[in-house]
């Protein structure tokens, strides 16, 4: 059976937070000597405190310019008045300032004065899948390390393009360069496979190039918040059009049959799994079809944004009376972990607002529950959690759940309407 990837962590970001104790083996060839001066450690400090709050890697991508991951410096973007960024190359530490960031692709560009290090050239093309590559970084701040691996092309699921790499990246190597045989940059380290580190992910260098041309950001809290907001809205637009565009596309096989239910087929960019559970003693059959996105951007303090989770289920009862059957269904949406209450005191999301009602969609009647939280710092964006159980037949029911992170109300309405109107019994006319 295919392992379900947790919704909020297809990939484990490489910022050093936990000691994993594994050290990359030292490289001895010429590449190491040639590259070592161009790879730096990126640290985010809070105030006067000498201790680091966050640690990652970076590399010189243009004179006075360091490329790293957005998630390495995310804390700074969120609260620039509280943090300072520093870059350490060899034994020398330099203050650095944020020049640009790309939340969607998890990239950031830093400016450093007086850093005398050679620029790593960007490759013009990606190597063919199966090519050997090497990755540099400073795991846990232990020292510059090189890891050899293989580029396998792109991961097939998700909103953002991720290079799929056979190599064990470690914490703290986030933001380090991925090089081809010629020593040119083909991408940036970003994350490892959830709960196992033999597969890792990178951002292709083509996503980095546009950052080199944007004018430097103003570093006030308001300006950074406005830029984050702008990028979140753009991400939302993109995610919505990919989601709804594919849902509405006429040429696709429009439906997916789940047990005795039929639903809108989710777009291919989702990672979906199918499961049927027969509860013999109870006389209940439950068929599930769940989908989520493998790769969604992570914004500091918001977690995964632009993430979408879908779950379609069909319940059928052979023996249970209608009262008991629906009694059991009542327990189902409540046990749904996604509808757990959120602490409003974290200052990131508001307290949830919920609306529950029996609602007609097409020929069906559903009991629909929606809870939503607004993003405190980003007006117009919300988290939505919807669960709906059909009430049309005494001994079977279809169930739809939809979880959106960082979406506008209009997008939620369009997607939710589409899913509810598209859900029916397989044998319905």
């Amino acid at each position, binding site marked *: 059976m295919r392992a379900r990837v947790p919704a909020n962590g297809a990939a484990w970001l490489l910022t050093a937070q936990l000691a994993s104790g594994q050290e990359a083996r030292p490289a001895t060839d010429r590449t190491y000597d040639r590259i070592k001066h161009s790879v730096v450690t990126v640290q985010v400090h809070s105030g006067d405190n000498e201790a680091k709050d966050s640690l990652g890697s970076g590399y010189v991508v243009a004179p006075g310019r360091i490329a790293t991951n957005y998630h390495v410096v995310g804390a700074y973007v969120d609260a620039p008045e509280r943090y300072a960024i520093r870059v350490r190359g060899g034994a020398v530490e330099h203050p650095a300032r944020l020049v640009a960031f790309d939340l969607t692709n998890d990239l950031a560009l830093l400016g450093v004065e007086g850093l005398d290090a050679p620029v790593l050239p960007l490759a013009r093309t990606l190597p063919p899948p199966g090519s050997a590559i090497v990755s540099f970084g400073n795991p846990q701040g232990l020292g510059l390390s090189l890891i050899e691996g293989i580029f396998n092309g792109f991961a097939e699921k998700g909103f953002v393009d991720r290079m799929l790499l056979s190599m064990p990246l470690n914490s703290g190597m986030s933001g380090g360069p991925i090089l081809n045989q010629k020593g040119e940059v083909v991408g940036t380290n970003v994350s490892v496979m959830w709960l196992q580190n033999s597969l890792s992910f990178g951002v292709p260098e083509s996503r980095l190039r546009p950052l080199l041309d944007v004018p430097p950001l103003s570093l006030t809290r308001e300006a950074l918040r406005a830029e984050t907001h702008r990028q979140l809205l753009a991400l939302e637009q993109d995610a919505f059009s990919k989601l709804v565009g594919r849902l509405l596309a006429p040429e696709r096989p429009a439906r997916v049959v789940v047990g005795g239910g039929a639903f809108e087929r989710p777009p291919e960019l989702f990672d979906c799994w199918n499961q049927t559970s027969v509860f013999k003693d109870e006389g209940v059959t439950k068929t599930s079809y769940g989908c989520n996105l493998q790769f969604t951007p992570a914004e500091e303090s918001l977690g995964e944004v632009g993430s979408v989770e879908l779950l379609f289920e069909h319940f059928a009862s052979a023996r249970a009376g209608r009262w008991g059957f629906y009694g059991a269904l009542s327990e189902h949406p409540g046990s749904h972990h996604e509808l757990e209450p959120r602490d409003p005191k974290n200052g990131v999301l508001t307290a949830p607002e919920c609306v529950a009602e029996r*609602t007609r969609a097409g020929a069906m009647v559903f009991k629909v529950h929606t809870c939503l939280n607004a993003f405190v710092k980003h007006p117009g964006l919300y988290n939505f959690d919807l669960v709906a159980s059909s009430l049309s037949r005494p001994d079977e029911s279809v169930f739809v759940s939809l979880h959106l992170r960082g979406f506008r109300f209009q997008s939620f309405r369009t997607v939710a309407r589409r899913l509810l109107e598209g859900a029916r019994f397989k044998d319905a006319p």
Partner: protein
Amino acid sequence: MIAIRLLREGAVVREQVFPALPLVLGRGPQADFVLADASVSRAHAQLERDEQGRLQLVDLGGVNGLHAGAQRVKALSISGTTRCRLGAVELEIAPVTDDPTLELRSVPWHHEEQRRGLGHHGLYLGLGVLGAVASQLMNPGLWSPWQRSPASELVGSVVAVLIALPLAAFLLFVALKAAGRRVRVADTLSALARVVWLSPLWIILTTAADYLLPGAAAAFASPLLAWAATLAAVVFLAGLRRPDRGRAFTLGWAAAVTALWLGMSLTSSLAAQRLGMPQNDYTVRPPLAGFAGVSSSLDAYFARVQTAAEAAAADAEGVRQTQDGR
């Protein structure tokens, strides 16, 4: 002929028939109908005919007055069988014919204060147990296919009632005794057993409300019905064996229950707010004879979600300003 009957707890305990008017009612020895009660004046009221020949009872200026229902009146016209109260004493006045057909109600007035046997207590307890079983049977969870042992669930609730009901009856008995009521444990036990039946009644009403009302209204109905049930139970229990249950008494208790209720719902909603917990009712009721319940259109539903989103946005704005102000 005029019959004057003395009542106690609504039951006739004394009757006297008079052939002629007027009649004086009071505590004094000269009264025609003597009432030995401290709340009654010596010559409290007079039964007479007015100019039109209609029968009426006139207050003679008794300190505690003449009451028709909860209202204090100067005079009360008697047509048919009429009930009234002189001070704390309940009376029934009725013009009667010569037919000797009037029968006193066979319920002995002293019944309620009599010591009752174990059988009676068992009967009351059984009534309470039946009420609890009835509400258990209406709980969909009991019939859920995931419910492995509905029988033990039922037995559990029976045992719980068997323990809790006598205990509650005793506590209520102590409280009422302290308030000076002439009450026995059998009274409180039978009263509480009747109160238990509010639970299945409440389930029936909320279920009906859920099917027949749109979501927003149904969400209102459930706490409203719970409030009404609590009110009924408390007023009923507090008024147990109280001879004069006037309007002020009922209103006072109703106000107290309502205040307590409001306080509790305010506290729980504040607590829920503090925990960030949405108060969700996930109950999914089955279609009955093809009727899934009153439902709204998707448009109406999303309009409500939009309103919720606007509320959350306003909330976010407030939090943002607080954060930026720091």
